[in-house]
């Protein structure tokens, strides 16, 4: 018991150090020098065949990708989000990059790469063991090493890279891949379906409670490489899993495209908790560079009494386009969305959620906290839809925005569509700035302005931070502080 607590404390310290290290000028913006072998820039059916061949995928997977690609060609890029961005040249991107030597175990992993993780504080090896966290670290496009495979395997949990899953568990992948986010779901999901490089695959069999929190650190490396992760998590009847996703990316001056797809499937009485801390390179204070983060995340409460909960802390990326959603299909299923989105300098975020109530007695809760500083724009965009058969569906939505500075924008676009007279749907939103009274009070108690702001912001976000696993909660708080540096005064 004691050692467990000590370990937890050690992790907290580690994470705090990590956040510390993310200091003022984004010190995580180092570039690891490893030789990359990748595909040349450009995208056509041949690229997809090559990509699929490199990954030694079966024929059906190649066809699946091609189908998605053909669909993608017919789709216009979405323009409805409140985002300003230049058209993206998809032919100028390279769709595959991988560390040159394919590692078979962690010992074979390029030391430079491990060093990267070291700097980021990814708890691999013993650190992972101490933390009780199994890590499937994705360095660019190929999974490097997966720890804790054995412990998980004993519990019957499958946790591996998507490439591996396609080879090892094709029947499971075929059954669930694209069943929540179909190939042609939207422009970026279609692109991802065509060219996805790798990602995580999690399968929790019936009745199993995953013995540890699963975690993946994604990291974008190699210049000009769009990274297209594909994550699939399936929880069978009565299963439970908590999954942590965290990201940082090295400093770049050219915008990098990131279009991930995450699919969650919860069968009867299953629960999936998915937490994200996203801290990709947001661009510098003049809005140069930064990641374009166009993500499709969707959970499907397929079985009765299932529950899917999304928690996200979004501080990074130049542009965020992301709406983690839950389809409440099963009766009495529950969907939750807790979000903190912070934008600074020239960052733009258009993020929110969708709760689609289909089953009876379904419940959803949305808590969104937006913080805008500098010249950034931060939008909440959400949909709560109650279908005809969703008797007694219940939704509660709360969206609060905090403005720091005169040149930023905070926006709220909630959509409510209700077709069942037994449903109750509620939405509340407020927008304000940090009040002078609050600041004055803090300062009169000898707290500096920046500290006061970060304290107030922390209080503003508390409702969401509470939902984060402990390891993330500390990091998240630190991240906000770091991200807000220079926002006041």
């Amino acid at each position, binding site marked *: 018991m004691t050692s467990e607590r000590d370990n937890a404390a050690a992790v907290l310290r580690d994470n705090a150090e990590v956040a510390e290290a993310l200091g003022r000028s984004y010190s995580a913006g180092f570039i690891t020098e490893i030789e990359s072998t990748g595909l040349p820039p450009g995208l056509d059916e041949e690229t997809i065949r090559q990509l699929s061949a490199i990954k030694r995928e079966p024929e059906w997977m190649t066809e699946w990708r091609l189908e998605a690609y053909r669909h993608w060609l017919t789709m216009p890029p979405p323009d*409805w989000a409140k985002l300003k961005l230049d058209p993206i040249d998809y032919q100028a991107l390279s769709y595959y990059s991988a560390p040159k030597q394919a590692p078979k175990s962690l010992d074979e992993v390029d030391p430079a790469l491990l060093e990267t993780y070291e700097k980021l504080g990814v708890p691999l090896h013993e650190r992972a063991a101490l933390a009780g966290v199994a890590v499937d670290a994705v360095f660019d496009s190929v999974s490097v090493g997966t720890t804790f495979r054995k412990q998980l395997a004993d519990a019957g949990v499958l946790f591996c890279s998507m490439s591996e899953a396609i080879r090892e568990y094709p029947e499971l992948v075929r059954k669930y891949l694209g069943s929540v986010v179909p190939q042609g779901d939207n422009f970026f999901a279609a692109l991802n379906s065509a060219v996805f490089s790798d990602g995580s695959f999690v399968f929790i069999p019936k009745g199993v409670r995953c013995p540890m929190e699963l975690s993946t650190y994604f990291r974008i490396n190699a210049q000009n490489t769009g990274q297209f992760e594909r994550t699939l998590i399936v929880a069978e009847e009565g299963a439970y899993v908590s999954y942590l996703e965290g990201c940082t990316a090295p400093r770049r001056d050219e915008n990098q495209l990131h279009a991930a797809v995450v699919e969650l499937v919860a069968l009867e009485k299953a629960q999936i908790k998915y937490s994200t801390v996203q801290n990709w390179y947001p661009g510098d204070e003049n809005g140069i560079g930064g990641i374009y983060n166009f993500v499709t995340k969707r959970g499907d409460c397929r079985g009765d009494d299932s529950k899917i909960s999304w928690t996200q802390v979004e501080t990074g990326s130049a542009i965020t386009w992301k709406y983690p959603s839950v389809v409440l299909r099963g009766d009495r299923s529950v969907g939750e969305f807790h979000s903190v989105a912070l934008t600074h300098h020239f960052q733009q975020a258009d993020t929110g959620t969708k709760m689609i109530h289909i089953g009876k007695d379904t419940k959803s809760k949305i808590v969104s906290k937006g913080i805008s500083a500098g010249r950034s724009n931060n939008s909440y965009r959400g949909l709560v839809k*109650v279908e*005809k058969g969703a008797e007694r569906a219940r939704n509660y939505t709360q969206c609060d*925005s905090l*403005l*720091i*500075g*005169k*040149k*930023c*924008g*905070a*926006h*709220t*676009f*909630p*959509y*409510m*569509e*209700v*077709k*069942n*007279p*037994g*449903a*109750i*749907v*509620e*939405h*509340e*939103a*407020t*927008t*304000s*700035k940090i009040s002078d009274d609050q600041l004055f009070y803090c300062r009169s108690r000898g707290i500096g302005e920046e500290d006061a702001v970060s304290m107030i912001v922390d209080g503003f976000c508390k409702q969401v931070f509470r939902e984060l696993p402990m390891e993330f909660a500390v990091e998240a708080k630190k991240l906000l502080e770091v991200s807000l540096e220079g926002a006041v005064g």
Partner: protein
Amino acid sequence: MSEPAVPFVASTLAAPLPPSGIGWLDEARRENLAAFADAGLPDTRVEAWKYTALRALAQRRFVQGDAQAATREVDAAALALPGLDGPRLVFVNGVFRGDLSDLANLPAGLTLQPLSQALAQDAEPLRFALSRRYRERGDAFARLNAAQAADGVVLRVAAGAKIATPVQLAFVGVAAEGELAWHARTVVELGEGAELALVERHVGSGVARQLGTLVADLVLRDDARLSHVLVQDAAPEAVLVHRHALQLGARAHVSLHALELGGSLVRHDLQAELAGDGARLDTRGVFVPRGRQHIDTQLAIRHQALDTASSSTWRGVADGRARGVFRGAIVVAPGADGADARLSNKNLLLSPNAEIDTKPELEIYADEVQAAHGATVGQLDERALFYLRSRGIPQAEARTLLTAAFCRAVLDDLPDAALREHLDGLLAVRLPA
């Protein structure tokens, strides 16, 4: 357009534009018509029309203007409002009817005349309003109106004039041969410090399968005050697309009460620009679609100056197979410090086949701001129902009572008691028994 002609657009374009003999006006009409022809009707992919599909309307053909409007039978008694006998302008199928109007003894400082007359006398003061080109993607009906509206209202209140009696505007839809489209244009201007109460009504009689469009511009100079009551009780078959664009100068105040009751397909755009420091806007409204009605209200408020305030309370009750759509968008522009913006939209969904779509929006670009909105969709409070029943009030009656109370919140602060009572009555008839 290379696509096969949409009947609605084709039949509209077949009609000649009303001749005005005024160069700039003819040009504006031509250009707006060209824009309409070019873009046609918006589909639901256009955000402003997301919840209002015009597919069925697009398949219908309309005859532009009613040549017999001047002689159509109208029940004048039905137009009367209790306790109100001030100046009145009445239009039947978009055409001014002097015989039903009352323009005698206008109070000092009030100019009230049909648009056709004002244009004939001196068109220049109307040039700014009527030269407008509508460029938004969803502006199809405003373009059509700008091209085709030959008549309407010109209302001016001189600076400092306080008009005691409410001015009434009535737009009556009467059955005509075939499907008729009429268009009316209203221009209202309140000078500095002017005060006015305006009661605007859409009334329908008989089976009037028609389309009406109305575009109104209301400009309030500094310190002007307007109380605007809007009662839309169009004929059950009617399609009505109306738009009110308000502009408020410094310290100007508008208090607006809207009842959206009638029509088969009704779209109301209510746009307000708080352009002067200290301007204030209060809107209260209720929409009660039932049967197969579709009522779409789009409220857009823009805070542009210092210390502006807006408060909006809207209620919706949908029954039968009806659909109620509400959008309440508030924008606080950069530099509009001191803005206080509040919006609430509560809805009752009474039937398994009805639908409510609501979208409150906030777009905030200034930081010295208090902005909040709330929206709910639900049903009557079971406990309140139980309470009433425990006091011996039958279930059905208790429901009616509670529903009426839910709606009446929007009329509570209407100062004119007789009018409030009348509107209460109109509302009561509409509510599900």
